[in-house]
């Protein structure tokens, strides 16, 4: 998507979770991506989905960079005519979920280890085949990160994550 911001020497450099409500129209995504790219922010994950109203889409973006640049990015996003609102939800008490698929190397001699591990880690087993086992996991990103670390010891052949989706707790509407 965009080029990485590079220098991590800046202490305010961190991952941010941004939530947007946008018009459901062609071209909106590129306008948003341009705001990030021009300011050197790397987009780590991006989820676009329909909202309850077909006129609008919801976007959840995880991106890394410094605080001051993010402030400018949010202001520029809110300035776009097609953006209804954009806000940084990093560190808030909000429900966040992500789904990951892991393809683990599992020959016959190690299969039972892998299946046991899947059970212990509360993963769904999606497919078991001759040389590989595919596991599915949902949860917050931290849970997926730690599963990733554990599975690495077993040899991950392939991994994909959907990116984060957010929803405010209780009656509050996510903005």
């Amino acid at each position, binding site marked *: 998507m965009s080029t990485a911001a590079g220098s991590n020497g800046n202490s305010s450099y961190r991952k941010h979770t941004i939530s947007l409500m*946008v*018009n459901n129209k*062609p*071209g909106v995504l*590129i*306008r948003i991506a*341009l705001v990030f790219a*021009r300011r050197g922010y790397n987009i780590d994950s991006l989820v676009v989905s329909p909202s309850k109203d077909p*006129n*609008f889409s919801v976007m959840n973006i995880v991106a890394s960079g410094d605080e001051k640049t993010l*402030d*400018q990015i949010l*202001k*520029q996003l*809110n*300035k*776009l*005519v*097609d*953006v*209804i*609102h954009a806000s940084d939800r990093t560190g808030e008490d909000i429900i966040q979920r992500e789904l990951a698929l892991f393809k683990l190397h599992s020959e016959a001699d190690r299969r039972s280890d892998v299946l046991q591990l899947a059970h212990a880690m509360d993963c769904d087993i999606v497919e078991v085949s001759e040389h590989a086992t595919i596991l599915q996991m949902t949860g917050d990103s931290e849970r997926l990160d730690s599963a990733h670390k554990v599975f690495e010891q077993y040899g991950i052949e392939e991994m994909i994550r959907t990116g984060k989706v957010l929803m405010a707790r209780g009656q509050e509407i996510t903005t």
Partner: protein
Amino acid sequence: MTKKFAAEVIVDIIQQQGVEYIFGYPGGAAIPIFDALVDSPVKLILTRHEQGAVHMADGFARATGKPGVVLVTSGPGATNTITGILTAQMDSVPMVVICGQQTTWNLGLDAFQEADVSGISFPVVKHSYLIKNAQDVPRIMREAFHLSQTGRPGPVLIDVPKDVASAMIEPDYDGELHLPGYKVPTDGDPSDIEQAAQMLNAARRPLLLVGHGAVISGAEKAVTILAEKMQIPVVNTLLGKGCFPETHPLSLGMLGMHGTAYANMAVKDCDLIMSIGSRWDDRIVGKIDSFCPDAVKIHIDIDPAEFNKTVQMDCTILGDARRVVESLNAIVKRGDTKEWLKQAEKWRRQYPLKYKKGGKLKAEHVLEEIQNQTMGRAFVTTDVGQHQMWAAQYLLTDHRFHWITSGGAGTMGFGFPAAIGAQFAHPEATVIAIVGDGGFQMTQAELSTAVINRLPIKIVVINNKYLGMVRQWQALFYDNRLSGVDMEGNPNFVKLAEAYGIKGIRIKRSADVKRLIQAALEYNDGPCLIDVEVEKEDNVYPMIPSGASYEQMIIEAPKVKPGMTAPKLEKPVGST
């Protein structure tokens, strides 16, 4: 309801918006819209290049505050407008650019004269549309005009495929606009205004910084009341000229890179600076860390994205500049600034703008003479470079909309077509284009447009046969290693004018300046080009090198003893 061609509906809405002129250039994909113009009272001004059309619309918009309208064809016709759209976007100029486009079924197939113009435009517009459904034409056209001129104005581009323009629709001219994400701030938050008033009341060395936002919102009266009531001196940005009268005793003129020394000294020493519609651009701020570190900083702006973008503020007020300043006027007290004003007057006397009289003809001399003869009543447009800075320094005006220049984008080739737009807007007024020999040649093809419409524009070519501002940098910071700045091969501009059937005048000697400027100003039978052969190696001062602090201002040319060379200066850290 009777059906109409969508192209006719486009032209209907342009007319309903009160638009008098469309600046344009045709091509295959735009023929349906050009066809609809034949029966419309909206006048089409055919230009010689699409860039000329956009700058004309821009000049018209800046001279009136109303949106300028452009009509071009697809592909190269549309891409030729991009520089002009950037120019309008950077300076918040209301504009609607309508582009013909290939048919919808050919989009994305690299068909003839197809370009993804709305895509190309994204980074340089306020908003853009590609109309896929002809029924959306009336809503989108009205949204475009609304967006272009409300809030922070800017250019809106509409891409109209040929089959969409040719479709029959039942137009709804009063339907609802669909802009749920578009917010226009108006009045400032009363608590922010109260805070700013307290800060202003407490200041002893306050300064008002007036920018383009004040011009756009029509804040001239409110700003004058504020300055006079509180006895605060005023500096203005390049684009803020004319909002607060530049001949007012409280005006210190333009600040920043080539601002007056006394304006910049006031910036350096103030204890409070309040921006009214100026975005603390790098030409003004220089080195961010050392910009007024001890002064209280207040910012009034209609665009919240400008707050704390460069310099950190102590108080921000989101709203329309005129309304916010009016609210402030109701609660601020008369200030005690006598000592501060005395100091400012001292600087003004001690460090006036000056240039070397005698010797070869100086651009400053010619501009000073134009000022003496027009007294700020003419509409002045400029190009970009040395002549632009000298014009900003010497051509003072007390009226908004009378100073038209490409500030943010710094677009060469802007000045002359912008003057054409301004003259269409004000046919009876004196319109003067101050241009350099470099920039003028970028859009000089529009001499045809000026002559066929018999526009009595005065085109003053400040001709030093150099790209003077770049040469100045190379001389000051790059050991005078001149690279790519010699304009050898310039035409004889008087003969060029004559080839177009235009009156040409040449000024070479200081003694002729008064008489020939007068002759040019009195000539009203169409355009008049004045080729001013000036000193080749004159530099613009004062100068704060790019990215430097106000302490590093160079007030005048360093004096060099015969046989010695000028001391070499550090290369600036900032760009250009």
